[in-house]
Protein backbone atom coordinates (compact mmCIF):
# COMPACT_ATOMS: atom_id res chain seq x y z
CA UNK A 1 0.00 0.00 0.00
CA UNK A 2 1.05 3.60 -0.60
CA UNK A 3 0.30 6.90 1.08
CA UNK A 4 -0.23 9.59 -1.52
CA UNK A 5 0.11 13.10 -0.12
CA UNK A 6 -0.69 16.13 -2.22
CA UNK A 7 -0.40 19.81 -1.35
CA UNK A 8 -2.41 21.84 -3.85
CA UNK A 9 -4.02 25.21 -4.43
CA UNK A 10 -7.23 25.58 -2.38
CA UNK A 11 -9.41 26.50 -5.37
CA UNK A 12 -8.38 23.31 -7.17
CA UNK A 13 -9.44 20.98 -4.41
CA UNK A 14 -13.03 20.46 -5.58
CA UNK A 15 -11.89 19.49 -9.09
CA UNK A 16 -9.34 17.06 -7.71
CA UNK A 17 -11.86 15.42 -5.41
CA UNK A 18 -14.33 14.97 -8.25
CA UNK A 19 -11.70 13.42 -10.52
CA UNK A 20 -10.53 11.06 -7.80
CA UNK A 21 -14.07 10.00 -7.00
CA UNK A 22 -14.71 9.25 -10.67
CA UNK A 23 -11.59 7.07 -10.61
CA UNK A 24 -12.97 5.21 -7.59
CA UNK A 25 -11.26 6.71 -4.58
CA UNK A 26 -13.73 6.32 -1.73
CA UNK A 27 -12.25 8.59 0.91
CA UNK A 28 -9.41 10.84 1.90
CA UNK A 29 -8.17 13.09 4.68
CA UNK A 30 -8.12 16.82 3.91
CA UNK A 31 -6.46 19.58 5.92
CA UNK A 32 -6.06 23.31 5.51
CA UNK A 33 -2.34 23.96 5.73
CA UNK A 34 0.03 26.80 5.01
CA UNK A 35 3.57 26.94 3.77
CA UNK A 36 5.80 28.36 1.12
CA UNK A 37 8.06 27.26 -1.68
CA UNK A 38 8.92 29.13 -4.82
CA UNK A 39 5.63 30.97 -4.43
CA UNK A 40 6.32 33.64 -1.82
CA UNK A 41 3.65 35.20 0.40
CA UNK A 42 2.12 38.61 0.05
CA UNK A 43 2.19 42.09 1.59
CA UNK A 44 -0.49 43.55 3.86
CA UNK A 45 -0.71 47.20 4.91
CA UNK A 46 -2.41 48.34 8.11
CA UNK A 47 -2.56 52.10 8.65
CA UNK A 48 0.52 52.48 6.48
CA UNK A 49 2.56 49.79 8.27
CA UNK A 50 3.59 47.06 5.81
CA UNK A 51 3.79 43.40 6.79
CA UNK A 52 5.20 40.56 4.71
CA UNK A 53 2.98 37.53 5.10
CA UNK A 54 5.31 34.63 4.28
CA UNK A 55 2.90 31.68 4.31
CA UNK A 56 0.46 30.80 1.56
CA UNK A 57 -2.70 28.81 2.33
CA UNK A 58 -2.89 25.33 0.71
CA UNK A 59 -4.98 22.17 0.90
CA UNK A 60 -3.30 18.88 1.86
CA UNK A 61 -4.86 15.58 0.72
CA UNK A 62 -3.81 12.25 2.17
CA UNK A 63 -4.98 9.02 0.55
CA UNK A 64 -3.86 5.47 1.29
CA UNK A 65 -4.18 3.33 -1.85
CA UNK A 66 -3.29 -0.07 -3.24
CA UNK A 67 0.15 -0.24 -4.84
CA UNK A 68 -1.26 -0.69 -8.34
CA UNK A 69 -3.39 2.50 -8.15
CA UNK A 70 -0.71 4.86 -6.84
CA UNK A 71 0.68 6.00 -10.19
CA UNK A 72 -2.78 6.60 -11.68
CA UNK A 73 -3.88 8.63 -8.69
CA UNK A 74 -0.75 10.77 -8.73
CA UNK A 75 -1.32 11.43 -12.41
CA UNK A 76 -4.97 12.41 -11.85
CA UNK A 77 -4.01 14.83 -9.09
CA UNK A 78 -1.23 16.42 -11.11
CA UNK A 79 -3.39 16.76 -14.21
CA UNK A 80 -6.34 18.21 -12.36
CA UNK A 81 -4.54 20.54 -10.00
CA UNK A 82 -2.19 21.98 -12.59
CA UNK A 83 -2.55 25.63 -13.60
CA UNK A 84 0.99 26.03 -14.90
CA UNK A 85 1.75 28.88 -12.54
CA UNK A 86 4.09 28.96 -9.56
CA UNK A 87 2.45 27.58 -6.42
CA UNK A 88 0.59 24.61 -7.91
CA UNK A 89 2.00 22.38 -5.15
CA UNK A 90 3.58 18.94 -4.81
CA UNK A 91 2.56 15.28 -4.70
CA UNK A 92 4.62 12.57 -3.06
CA UNK A 93 4.24 8.85 -2.41
CA UNK A 94 5.42 6.80 0.57
CA UNK A 95 5.16 3.09 1.38
CA UNK A 96 2.68 2.11 4.12
CA UNK A 97 3.34 -0.94 6.38
CA UNK A 98 -0.11 -1.55 7.82
CA UNK A 99 -3.66 -0.18 7.87
CA UNK A 100 -6.41 -1.06 10.35
CA UNK A 101 -10.06 -0.03 10.14
CA UNK A 102 -10.95 1.07 13.66
CA UNK A 103 -14.62 0.04 13.50
CA UNK A 104 -14.07 -3.59 12.47
CA UNK A 105 -10.42 -4.37 12.99
CA UNK A 106 -10.06 -5.22 9.26
CA UNK A 107 -6.44 -5.06 8.16
CA UNK A 108 -4.52 -3.79 5.12
CA UNK A 109 -6.20 -3.91 1.67
CA UNK A 110 -9.58 -4.85 3.12
CA UNK A 111 -9.36 -1.79 5.37
CA UNK A 112 -8.97 0.68 2.48
Amino acid at each position, binding site marked *: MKLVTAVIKPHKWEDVREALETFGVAGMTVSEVSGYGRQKGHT*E*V*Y*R*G*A*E*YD*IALVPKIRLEIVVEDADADDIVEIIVKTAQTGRIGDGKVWVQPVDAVVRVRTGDRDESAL
Partner: protein
Amino acid sequence: MDYGLQAWMLVSASLVLLMTTPGLALFYGGMSRSKSVLNMMMMSFSAMGVIGIVYVLWGWSMSYGAQDVALLFNNPFETFGLNGISGTGYMGVGFQLTFAVITAALISGAVADRLKFSAWLVFLPLWVTLSYFPLAHMVWGGGFLSGVQNGLADLLFSGDGGAAVAPIDYAGGTVVHINAGVAGLVLALLLGRRLGFGKEPIKPHSLPLTMIGAGLLWFGWFGFNVGSWVPGDLTGDAAGTYWLEETSLVWLNTTVATCAAMMSWLLVEKLRDGKATSLGAASGVVAGLVAITPACGALSPVGSIILGAVAGALCALAVGLKYRFGYDDSLDVVGVHLVGGLVGTIGIGFLALDGGLFYGDGIRQLVVQLAVALFAVLWSAVATLGVGLLVKAVIGLRVTEEDEVAGIDLADHGESAYDLSSTSGSSRRPAVLAESKPVAEGANA
Protein backbone atom coordinates in the same frame (compact mmCIF):
# COMPACT_ATOMS: atom_id res chain seq x y z
CA MET B 1 -37.69 72.77 28.28
CA ASP B 2 -40.59 70.76 27.00
CA TYR B 3 -41.14 67.04 27.28
CA GLY B 4 -39.98 66.20 23.76
CA LEU B 5 -36.65 67.90 24.22
CA GLN B 6 -36.07 66.18 27.54
CA ALA B 7 -36.87 62.81 25.99
CA TRP B 8 -34.34 63.57 23.24
CA MET B 9 -31.66 64.16 25.86
CA LEU B 10 -32.28 60.73 27.40
CA VAL B 11 -31.99 59.18 23.94
CA SER B 12 -28.79 61.14 23.32
CA ALA B 13 -27.23 59.98 26.57
CA SER B 14 -28.07 56.39 25.68
CA LEU B 15 -26.54 56.83 22.22
CA VAL B 16 -23.29 58.10 23.74
CA LEU B 17 -23.25 55.09 26.04
CA LEU B 18 -23.55 52.89 22.93
CA MET B 19 -20.36 54.51 21.64
CA THR B 20 -18.29 53.09 24.50
CA THR B 21 -20.06 49.81 25.13
CA PRO B 22 -19.88 48.21 22.70
CA GLY B 23 -18.84 50.66 19.93
CA LEU B 24 -15.35 51.61 21.07
CA ALA B 25 -14.79 48.19 22.65
CA LEU B 26 -15.40 46.58 19.23
CA PHE B 27 -13.46 49.21 17.28
CA TYR B 28 -10.37 48.75 19.45
CA GLY B 29 -10.95 45.05 20.13
CA GLY B 30 -10.85 44.15 16.44
CA MET B 31 -7.58 46.02 16.04
CA SER B 32 -5.96 44.12 18.92
CA ARG B 33 -4.31 40.75 18.60
CA SER B 34 -6.45 37.73 19.42
CA LYS B 35 -4.52 37.19 22.66
CA SER B 36 -5.41 40.62 24.02
CA VAL B 37 -8.84 41.44 22.58
CA LEU B 38 -10.69 40.71 25.82
CA ASN B 39 -8.45 43.02 27.84
CA MET B 40 -8.95 45.75 25.25
CA MET B 41 -12.73 45.40 25.42
CA MET B 42 -12.60 45.20 29.21
CA MET B 43 -10.85 48.57 29.37
CA SER B 44 -13.91 50.15 27.75
CA PHE B 45 -16.38 48.23 29.88
CA SER B 46 -14.52 48.99 33.11
CA ALA B 47 -14.34 52.69 32.22
CA MET B 48 -18.13 52.58 32.22
CA GLY B 49 -18.16 50.80 35.57
CA VAL B 50 -15.68 53.01 37.40
CA ILE B 51 -16.42 56.44 35.97
CA GLY B 52 -20.18 55.99 36.03
CA ILE B 53 -19.90 55.83 39.81
CA VAL B 54 -17.22 58.49 40.22
CA TYR B 55 -19.26 60.88 38.10
CA VAL B 56 -22.24 60.69 40.40
CA LEU B 57 -20.05 61.04 43.52
CA TRP B 58 -17.90 64.03 42.61
CA GLY B 59 -17.59 64.25 38.80
CA TRP B 60 -20.66 66.35 38.18
CA SER B 61 -19.86 68.57 41.14
CA MET B 62 -16.30 69.21 39.96
CA SER B 63 -17.47 70.03 36.44
CA TYR B 64 -20.61 72.06 36.97
CA GLY B 65 -21.78 74.16 39.89
CA ALA B 66 -21.60 77.58 41.45
CA GLN B 67 -18.49 77.18 43.63
CA ASP B 68 -15.74 77.75 41.11
CA VAL B 69 -12.13 77.42 42.22
CA ALA B 70 -9.72 79.69 40.29
CA LEU B 71 -11.72 79.06 37.08
CA LEU B 72 -10.05 75.60 36.93
CA PHE B 73 -12.58 73.31 38.58
CA ASN B 74 -15.68 73.44 40.73
CA ASN B 75 -15.87 72.45 44.40
CA PRO B 76 -16.12 68.63 44.36
CA PHE B 77 -18.22 68.68 47.55
CA GLU B 78 -20.83 71.22 46.45
CA THR B 79 -23.12 68.57 45.02
CA PHE B 80 -21.20 65.46 46.15
CA GLY B 81 -23.30 62.37 45.48
CA LEU B 82 -25.70 64.64 43.56
CA ASN B 83 -26.80 66.23 46.82
CA GLY B 84 -29.08 69.06 45.74
CA ILE B 85 -29.75 67.67 42.26
CA SER B 86 -33.19 66.26 41.59
CA GLY B 87 -35.85 65.62 38.98
CA THR B 88 -34.86 66.51 35.43
CA GLY B 89 -31.48 67.66 36.77
CA TYR B 90 -30.47 64.01 36.61
CA MET B 91 -30.85 64.12 32.83
CA GLY B 92 -27.90 66.47 32.37
CA VAL B 93 -25.83 64.41 34.79
CA GLY B 94 -26.54 61.25 32.80
CA PHE B 95 -25.62 62.87 29.50
CA GLN B 96 -22.36 64.31 30.82
CA LEU B 97 -21.51 61.07 32.61
CA THR B 98 -21.36 59.21 29.31
CA PHE B 99 -18.89 61.80 27.96
CA ALA B 100 -16.51 61.30 30.87
CA VAL B 101 -16.69 57.53 30.34
CA ILE B 102 -15.87 57.54 26.65
CA THR B 103 -13.07 60.07 27.00
CA ALA B 104 -11.24 57.84 29.47
CA ALA B 105 -12.02 54.72 27.43
CA LEU B 106 -10.48 56.32 24.32
CA ILE B 107 -7.08 56.35 26.06
CA SER B 108 -7.04 52.55 26.26
CA GLY B 109 -6.10 52.28 22.58
CA ALA B 110 -2.63 53.62 23.35
CA VAL B 111 -1.79 51.01 25.97
CA ALA B 112 -2.82 47.77 24.23
CA ASP B 113 -1.33 44.42 25.26
CA ARG B 114 0.72 45.62 28.23
CA LEU B 115 -1.04 47.81 30.82
CA LYS B 116 -1.95 45.88 33.98
CA PHE B 117 -5.73 45.77 34.42
CA SER B 118 -5.34 46.77 38.07
CA ALA B 119 -3.28 49.81 37.02
CA TRP B 120 -6.03 50.80 34.57
CA LEU B 121 -8.69 50.59 37.28
CA VAL B 122 -6.64 52.87 39.57
CA PHE B 123 -5.70 55.23 36.73
CA LEU B 124 -9.31 55.82 35.69
CA PRO B 125 -10.73 57.68 38.73
CA LEU B 126 -7.52 59.64 39.31
CA TRP B 127 -7.27 60.73 35.69
CA VAL B 128 -10.85 61.92 35.30
CA THR B 129 -10.51 63.80 38.58
CA LEU B 130 -7.33 65.65 37.62
CA SER B 131 -7.74 65.95 33.85
CA TYR B 132 -11.29 65.41 32.59
CA PHE B 133 -13.45 67.10 35.22
CA PRO B 134 -11.29 70.26 35.35
CA LEU B 135 -11.21 70.57 31.54
CA ALA B 136 -14.97 70.00 31.34
CA HIS B 137 -15.40 72.76 33.90
CA MET B 138 -13.00 75.10 32.12
CA VAL B 139 -14.67 74.66 28.73
CA TRP B 140 -18.35 74.00 29.48
CA GLY B 141 -18.75 74.92 33.14
CA GLY B 142 -17.89 78.62 32.80
CA GLY B 143 -14.20 78.19 33.59
CA PHE B 144 -10.88 79.38 32.19
CA LEU B 145 -11.40 78.11 28.64
CA SER B 146 -14.89 79.56 28.19
CA GLY B 147 -15.72 83.14 27.30
CA VAL B 148 -15.88 84.13 30.96
CA GLN B 149 -14.28 87.24 32.44
CA ASN B 150 -10.57 86.64 33.21
CA GLY B 151 -10.69 83.47 31.12
CA LEU B 152 -8.02 82.77 28.52
CA ALA B 153 -10.02 84.28 25.65
CA ASP B 154 -10.81 87.34 27.75
CA LEU B 155 -7.12 87.80 28.52
CA LEU B 156 -6.42 87.75 24.77
CA PHE B 157 -9.29 89.89 23.50
CA SER B 158 -11.16 91.51 26.33
CA GLY B 159 -14.76 92.40 25.73
CA ASP B 160 -17.62 93.80 27.73
CA GLY B 161 -17.83 91.65 30.88
CA GLY B 162 -16.10 88.68 29.20
CA ALA B 163 -14.15 87.70 26.11
CA ALA B 164 -14.86 89.61 22.89
CA VAL B 165 -14.44 86.29 21.06
CA ALA B 166 -15.58 83.24 22.98
CA PRO B 167 -13.83 79.89 22.34
CA ILE B 168 -15.96 77.33 20.47
CA ASP B 169 -16.03 73.69 21.52
CA TYR B 170 -19.46 72.31 20.75
CA ALA B 171 -19.12 68.70 21.92
CA GLY B 172 -15.57 68.10 23.05
CA GLY B 173 -12.66 68.77 20.70
CA THR B 174 -10.56 69.88 23.65
CA VAL B 175 -12.25 68.23 26.62
CA VAL B 176 -12.68 64.84 24.96
CA HIS B 177 -10.34 64.32 22.01
CA ILE B 178 -7.28 66.47 22.64
CA ASN B 179 -7.49 65.38 26.26
CA ALA B 180 -7.68 61.64 25.47
CA GLY B 181 -5.06 61.93 22.71
CA VAL B 182 -2.50 63.64 24.93
CA ALA B 183 -3.20 61.23 27.78
CA GLY B 184 -2.68 58.30 25.39
CA LEU B 185 0.66 59.71 24.28
CA VAL B 186 1.88 60.29 27.84
CA LEU B 187 0.80 56.83 29.01
CA ALA B 188 2.36 55.16 25.96
CA LEU B 189 5.66 56.93 26.73
CA LEU B 190 5.51 55.93 30.42
CA LEU B 191 4.72 52.32 29.53
CA GLY B 192 7.29 51.88 26.79
CA ARG B 193 6.96 49.95 23.57
CA ARG B 194 5.42 46.51 23.25
CA LEU B 195 7.78 43.60 22.71
CA GLY B 196 8.39 43.31 18.99
CA PHE B 197 7.00 46.79 18.18
CA GLY B 198 8.00 47.78 14.66
CA LYS B 199 9.55 44.36 14.00
CA GLU B 200 6.98 41.63 14.49
CA PRO B 201 3.65 41.67 12.68
CA ILE B 202 1.38 43.14 15.34
CA LYS B 203 -1.71 43.43 13.20
CA PRO B 204 -5.49 43.57 13.72
CA HIS B 205 -7.05 40.18 14.42
CA SER B 206 -10.59 40.97 13.21
CA LEU B 207 -11.33 43.94 10.99
CA PRO B 208 -15.06 43.10 10.78
CA LEU B 209 -15.25 43.80 14.54
CA THR B 210 -13.50 47.11 13.92
CA MET B 211 -15.93 48.00 11.11
CA ILE B 212 -18.92 47.19 13.31
CA GLY B 213 -17.40 49.28 16.09
CA ALA B 214 -16.81 52.22 13.78
CA GLY B 215 -20.40 51.98 12.57
CA LEU B 216 -21.72 51.99 16.12
CA LEU B 217 -19.48 54.94 16.98
CA TRP B 218 -20.86 56.88 14.01
CA PHE B 219 -24.44 56.10 15.03
CA GLY B 220 -23.79 56.94 18.68
CA TRP B 221 -22.07 60.17 17.70
CA PHE B 222 -25.47 61.58 16.74
CA GLY B 223 -26.21 61.57 20.45
CA PHE B 224 -22.78 62.96 21.24
CA ASN B 225 -22.98 65.95 18.89
CA VAL B 226 -26.69 66.44 18.32
CA GLY B 227 -27.39 66.15 22.06
CA SER B 228 -24.83 68.84 22.89
CA TRP B 229 -27.09 71.79 22.18
CA VAL B 230 -27.71 74.33 24.91
CA PRO B 231 -31.19 75.84 25.17
CA GLY B 232 -30.09 78.90 27.14
CA ASP B 233 -33.09 80.66 28.61
CA LEU B 234 -35.50 79.54 25.92
CA THR B 235 -38.71 77.74 26.82
CA GLY B 236 -41.74 76.34 25.06
CA ASP B 237 -42.08 76.81 21.30
CA ALA B 238 -39.04 79.08 21.11
CA ALA B 239 -36.88 76.35 22.62
CA GLY B 240 -38.39 73.76 20.29
CA THR B 241 -37.82 75.85 17.16
CA TYR B 242 -34.28 76.67 18.18
CA TRP B 243 -33.63 72.99 18.91
CA LEU B 244 -34.89 71.89 15.51
CA GLU B 245 -32.83 74.47 13.63
CA GLU B 246 -29.70 73.76 15.63
CA THR B 247 -29.87 69.98 15.59
CA SER B 248 -30.71 69.80 11.88
CA LEU B 249 -27.45 71.58 11.08
CA VAL B 250 -25.42 69.62 13.64
CA TRP B 251 -26.73 66.27 12.40
CA LEU B 252 -25.91 67.08 8.79
CA ASN B 253 -22.47 68.51 9.58
CA THR B 254 -21.61 65.45 11.67
CA THR B 255 -22.58 63.20 8.77
CA VAL B 256 -20.90 64.92 5.84
CA ALA B 257 -17.63 65.68 7.64
CA THR B 258 -17.39 61.97 8.38
CA CYS B 259 -18.12 61.03 4.76
CA ALA B 260 -15.38 63.37 3.58
CA ALA B 261 -12.84 62.16 6.14
CA MET B 262 -13.37 58.52 5.20
CA MET B 263 -12.86 59.26 1.52
CA SER B 264 -9.79 61.44 2.04
CA TRP B 265 -8.18 58.81 4.31
CA LEU B 266 -8.78 56.20 1.59
CA LEU B 267 -7.33 58.54 -1.05
CA VAL B 268 -4.14 59.00 0.97
CA GLU B 269 -3.85 55.23 1.32
CA LYS B 270 -4.43 54.62 -2.38
CA LEU B 271 -1.74 57.13 -3.31
CA ARG B 272 0.74 56.10 -0.62
CA ASP B 273 0.24 52.34 -0.21
CA GLY B 274 -1.49 51.40 -3.45
CA LYS B 275 -4.63 50.01 -1.76
CA ALA B 276 -7.66 51.51 -0.04
CA THR B 277 -8.22 49.47 3.13
CA SER B 278 -11.19 48.71 5.35
CA LEU B 279 -9.17 49.73 8.40
CA GLY B 280 -8.56 53.02 6.62
CA ALA B 281 -12.29 53.49 6.08
CA ALA B 282 -13.08 52.75 9.74
CA SER B 283 -10.28 55.04 10.88
CA GLY B 284 -11.33 57.81 8.51
CA VAL B 285 -14.86 57.64 9.89
CA VAL B 286 -13.58 58.17 13.43
CA ALA B 287 -11.15 60.92 12.36
CA GLY B 288 -13.99 62.83 10.72
CA LEU B 289 -16.26 62.42 13.73
CA VAL B 290 -13.49 63.64 16.02
CA ALA B 291 -12.74 66.72 13.91
CA ILE B 292 -16.37 67.79 13.51
CA THR B 293 -17.10 67.33 17.23
CA PRO B 294 -16.06 70.83 18.35
CA ALA B 295 -17.14 72.44 15.08
CA CYS B 296 -20.51 70.85 14.30
CA GLY B 297 -22.56 73.86 15.40
CA ALA B 298 -20.36 76.53 13.87
CA LEU B 299 -19.81 75.44 10.27
CA SER B 300 -21.87 75.19 7.10
CA PRO B 301 -22.32 71.72 5.59
CA VAL B 302 -19.80 72.55 2.88
CA GLY B 303 -17.38 73.87 5.49
CA SER B 304 -17.85 70.57 7.33
CA ILE B 305 -16.91 68.63 4.20
CA ILE B 306 -13.70 70.67 3.93
CA LEU B 307 -12.89 70.15 7.61
CA GLY B 308 -13.56 66.41 7.36
CA ALA B 309 -11.42 66.02 4.25
CA VAL B 310 -8.49 67.81 5.89
CA ALA B 311 -8.87 65.75 9.07
CA GLY B 312 -9.03 62.42 7.23
CA ALA B 313 -5.88 63.16 5.23
CA LEU B 314 -3.88 64.57 8.13
CA CYS B 315 -4.82 61.71 10.48
CA ALA B 316 -3.96 59.14 7.79
CA LEU B 317 -0.50 60.68 7.64
CA ALA B 318 -0.20 61.19 11.40
CA VAL B 319 -0.64 57.50 12.29
CA GLY B 320 2.82 56.90 10.81
CA LEU B 321 4.51 59.27 13.25
CA LYS B 322 4.76 56.66 15.98
CA TYR B 323 7.19 54.63 13.89
CA ARG B 324 9.28 57.68 13.09
CA PHE B 325 9.49 58.82 16.71
CA GLY B 326 9.39 55.38 18.30
CA TYR B 327 6.46 55.71 20.74
CA ASP B 328 4.03 52.79 20.78
CA ASP B 329 0.63 54.47 20.59
CA SER B 330 -0.74 51.05 19.76
CA LEU B 331 -4.11 51.82 18.14
CA ASP B 332 -3.38 55.43 17.19
CA VAL B 333 -5.12 57.48 19.85
CA VAL B 334 -2.64 60.27 19.10
CA GLY B 335 -2.89 60.01 15.33
CA VAL B 336 -6.68 60.01 15.31
CA HIS B 337 -7.90 61.78 18.46
CA LEU B 338 -5.15 64.29 19.23
CA VAL B 339 -4.59 65.21 15.59
CA GLY B 340 -8.30 65.09 14.72
CA GLY B 341 -9.15 67.10 17.84
CA LEU B 342 -6.57 69.74 16.93
CA VAL B 343 -7.80 69.92 13.32
CA GLY B 344 -11.37 70.44 14.49
CA THR B 345 -10.58 72.90 17.27
CA ILE B 346 -8.22 75.01 15.18
CA GLY B 347 -10.23 74.55 11.97
CA ILE B 348 -13.07 76.49 13.60
CA GLY B 349 -10.82 79.56 13.43
CA PHE B 350 -10.82 79.28 9.65
CA LEU B 351 -14.25 77.86 8.87
CA ALA B 352 -16.69 79.20 11.48
CA LEU B 353 -19.57 80.99 9.74
CA ASP B 354 -19.42 83.55 12.50
CA GLY B 355 -15.80 84.52 13.28
CA GLY B 356 -13.87 82.36 10.80
CA LEU B 357 -10.87 83.73 8.89
CA PHE B 358 -12.23 82.40 5.58
CA TYR B 359 -15.42 84.39 6.09
CA GLY B 360 -13.55 87.66 6.48
CA ASP B 361 -13.87 87.87 10.23
CA GLY B 362 -10.16 88.23 10.99
CA ILE B 363 -7.84 86.05 13.00
CA ARG B 364 -9.18 86.58 16.52
CA GLN B 365 -11.25 83.38 16.59
CA LEU B 366 -8.28 81.47 15.20
CA VAL B 367 -5.96 82.84 17.87
CA VAL B 368 -8.46 81.99 20.60
CA GLN B 369 -8.92 78.45 19.25
CA LEU B 370 -5.14 77.92 19.07
CA ALA B 371 -4.65 79.19 22.61
CA VAL B 372 -7.42 77.00 24.00
CA ALA B 373 -6.08 73.93 22.21
CA LEU B 374 -2.57 74.55 23.48
CA PHE B 375 -3.78 75.03 27.05
CA ALA B 376 -5.78 71.79 26.88
CA VAL B 377 -2.69 69.94 25.60
CA LEU B 378 -0.57 71.25 28.47
CA TRP B 379 -3.19 70.59 31.15
CA SER B 380 -3.81 67.04 30.01
CA ALA B 381 -0.08 66.30 29.66
CA VAL B 382 0.75 67.48 33.18
CA ALA B 383 -2.27 65.80 34.79
CA THR B 384 -1.69 62.49 32.99
CA LEU B 385 2.02 62.53 33.77
CA GLY B 386 1.28 63.07 37.46
CA VAL B 387 -1.31 60.29 37.63
CA GLY B 388 0.77 57.93 35.50
CA LEU B 389 3.90 58.37 37.59
CA LEU B 390 1.92 57.90 40.79
CA VAL B 391 0.32 54.64 39.63
CA LYS B 392 3.66 53.44 38.30
CA ALA B 393 5.35 54.11 41.64
CA VAL B 394 2.66 52.51 43.77
CA ILE B 395 1.51 49.40 41.88
CA GLY B 396 3.42 49.46 38.58
CA LEU B 397 1.98 49.92 35.10
CA ARG B 398 3.18 47.03 33.02
CA VAL B 399 2.60 43.28 32.98
CA THR B 400 5.65 40.99 33.06
CA GLU B 401 7.43 40.11 29.85
CA GLU B 402 6.23 36.52 30.17
CA ASP B 403 2.60 37.59 30.54
CA GLU B 404 2.89 39.95 27.60
CA VAL B 405 4.16 37.15 25.38
CA ALA B 406 1.50 34.71 26.55
CA GLY B 407 -1.17 37.40 26.19
CA ILE B 408 -2.75 39.75 28.69
CA ASP B 409 -6.15 38.06 28.30
CA LEU B 410 -4.77 34.95 29.91
CA ALA B 411 -2.53 36.75 32.40
CA ASP B 412 -5.00 39.30 33.77
CA HIS B 413 -8.41 37.80 33.04
CA GLY B 414 -7.79 34.05 32.88
CA GLU B 415 -9.70 33.72 29.62
CA SER B 416 -9.12 33.28 25.92
CA ALA B 417 -11.35 35.07 23.44
CA TYR B 418 -11.80 32.35 20.87
CA ASP B 419 -12.19 28.63 21.50
CA LEU B 420 -12.70 27.41 17.97
CA SER B 421 -10.85 24.12 18.20
CA SER B 422 -12.39 20.98 19.58
CA THR B 423 -8.92 19.62 20.21
CA SER B 424 -7.51 22.25 22.54
CA GLY B 425 -6.75 19.68 25.21
CA SER B 426 -8.86 21.42 27.84
CA SER B 427 -10.65 19.49 30.54
CA ARG B 428 -13.11 20.63 33.17
CA ARG B 429 -11.82 20.67 36.71
CA PRO B 430 -14.33 18.69 38.77
CA ALA B 431 -16.77 21.15 40.31
CA VAL B 432 -17.49 20.78 44.00
CA LEU B 433 -21.14 19.88 43.79
CA ALA B 434 -23.43 19.96 46.76
CA GLU B 435 -23.91 16.46 48.11
CA SER B 436 -27.24 15.19 46.90
CA LYS B 437 -29.14 13.20 49.46
CA PRO B 438 -32.14 11.15 48.50
CA VAL B 439 -35.20 12.73 50.00
CA ALA B 440 -36.43 10.52 52.77
CA GLU B 441 -39.80 9.11 51.96
CA GLY B 442 -42.57 10.85 53.75
CA ALA B 443 -40.25 13.66 54.90
CA ASN B 444 -42.81 16.24 53.96
CA ALA B 445 -45.77 14.24 55.08
